[in-house]
């Protein structure tokens, strides 16, 4: 399985903090995004936001990054700390 986590405004828009997908369903971060978008109209709209960032195992990555079972994949809005 792949663990997927959401943060900040994205988590609130989805009303979901985490989610799991079978590793066989997705090869890349973009594949995961597509699968999540396909869940329903609300999620599709939320994931159409092109400014969303992604991380795999706590490192920022782009959509072509490969994923495997046991990975933790995160999606979140641009960061605003400091």
């Amino acid at each position, binding site marked *: 399985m792949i663990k997927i*986590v959401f943060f*900040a405004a994205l988590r609130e828009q989805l009303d979901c903090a985490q989610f799991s997908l079978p590793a066989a369903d997705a090869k890349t971060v973009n594949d995961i995004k597509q699968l999540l978008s396909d869940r329903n109209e609300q999620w599709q709209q939320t994931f159409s936001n092109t400014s969303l960032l992604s991380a795999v195992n706590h490192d920022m990555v782009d959509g072509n990054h490969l994923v495997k079972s046991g990975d933790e994949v995160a999606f*979140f*809005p641009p*960061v*605003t700390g*400091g």
Partner: protein
Amino acid sequence: MLKQEISIQTNDFSLADEVALLEEDNVTDGAVVTFTGRVRNNNNGNSVTTLTLEHYPGMTEKSLAKIIIQAKDRWQLGRVKVIHRIGELSIGDQIVFVGVTSKHRQDAFAANEFIMDYLKVKAPFWKKEQITDEGKTSENWLDAKNSDTDKADLWS
């Protein structure tokens, strides 16, 4: 002695204590540069009452550690300390601290600014502000600023 370089915490910090830790038994560094970020009472013309800081535990520490390693690769640094607070904060509260020591001031100034600039665009923190507008209270997540990205890009 400075035990760890990164601290993510809900509680406040003391600038004097942090400077003391950077300086304690440190006779090689002639420069100590510190930056403290605080909660402003205004943003985009709105009156901010409180600020809530969320982060991504695990990734936050990892991203800050990477930023510190990059800073040490670029400049000759002695000690480094980064503190970031999370949770609910009020106007005037301290949010972030970056302290850097070096033999000479140029490296300490540059490294401190670099760490803050990179923290702003790479460390997974998000601010939600509670604002009061004509007596009505609402809350919203802050948008990232292009100016922060542009500033960080200047270092690459």
